[in-house]
């Protein structure tokens, strides 16, 4: 029988990237500044995580000018939402596996 942790996705299974997907799943979309401040990341760090998630087609990045200033909006793709759901399911499965062992 395979251990549930084998279902964890390497791209998603990382604190900041999970946080990004959780925010986008809840809010629909968020801008770069909100994600940076909320997850307490540096600009460069967040940019790298976003690049990884975008490369895996889990998020969509839109850059536009608002009030003559550039603004970056990030939203989750259906694939990104599904990846977050399966990650959470895998984590819950790890927990319930241990709990059921303890009970037996």
């Amino acid at each position, binding site marked *: 029988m395979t*251990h549930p*942790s084998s279902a*964890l996705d390497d791209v998603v299974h990382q*604190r900041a990237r*999970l*946080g990004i997907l*959780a*925010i986008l*799943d*809840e*809010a*629909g*979309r*968020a*801008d*770069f*500044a*909100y994600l940076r401040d*909320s*997850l307490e990341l540096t600009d460069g760090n967040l940019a790298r995580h976003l690049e990884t998630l975008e490369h895996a087609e889990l998020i969509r990045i839109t850059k536009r000018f*608002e009030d003559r200033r550039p603004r970056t909006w990030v*939203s989750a793709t259906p694939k990104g939402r599904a990846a977050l759901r399966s990650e*959470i399911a895998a*984590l*819950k499965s*790890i*927990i319930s*596996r*241990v*709990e059921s062992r303890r009970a037996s």
Partner: protein
Amino acid sequence: MMRSDEALHVLSEVESVRARTRRALDSSGFPLLVFGVLTLGSVPVGMTALSLGAGFYPQIGFYWAVGATIGVVLIAVHYAWRERSSGIGDRATRAAAFTATAFAILLGALTLGLVGDGATRGFGPQLAISGGYLLFALLERRLVVATVAIVLAVIAVASWLVVGGLKAYVLSALVYAAALIWAGLVLYRER
């Protein structure tokens, strides 16, 4: 292999991020305040119309048609401003939720307040607002707003059954307005 305590820690972090996001997204206080003030304003409007011999209910119906439209526009502007200033929010989902709620309130206020008669005229607008807010609460997943909406609907109907007539509208409108403004201020400060 991941240990269960690690998994539990990651899950609780995700849940904490989600909770923070929900708090940042929440803007249900402003719509409650707007409709609370509108409800309060309907009482002097109706009484003035009555004293001028213009008829209480037709003027109240007209007041709600105009007032609810202005309220809906104010709330739409507030939503757009909030999203721009906070850097968070889903315009498409929010717009759908907002349109559905505004439509429910307007339709309810118009059909019950203008073309209804007897009891429906008395508590029609409040019932329509309650229905709209119940829908809003479901879409926004706000239990507080859903509770306020249900309690207010019960107050509107109960005051009609117990007191009746014009007094019932005035009584329920005052209670309604106080509750909406109070809940609105509490939610607004919580942000």
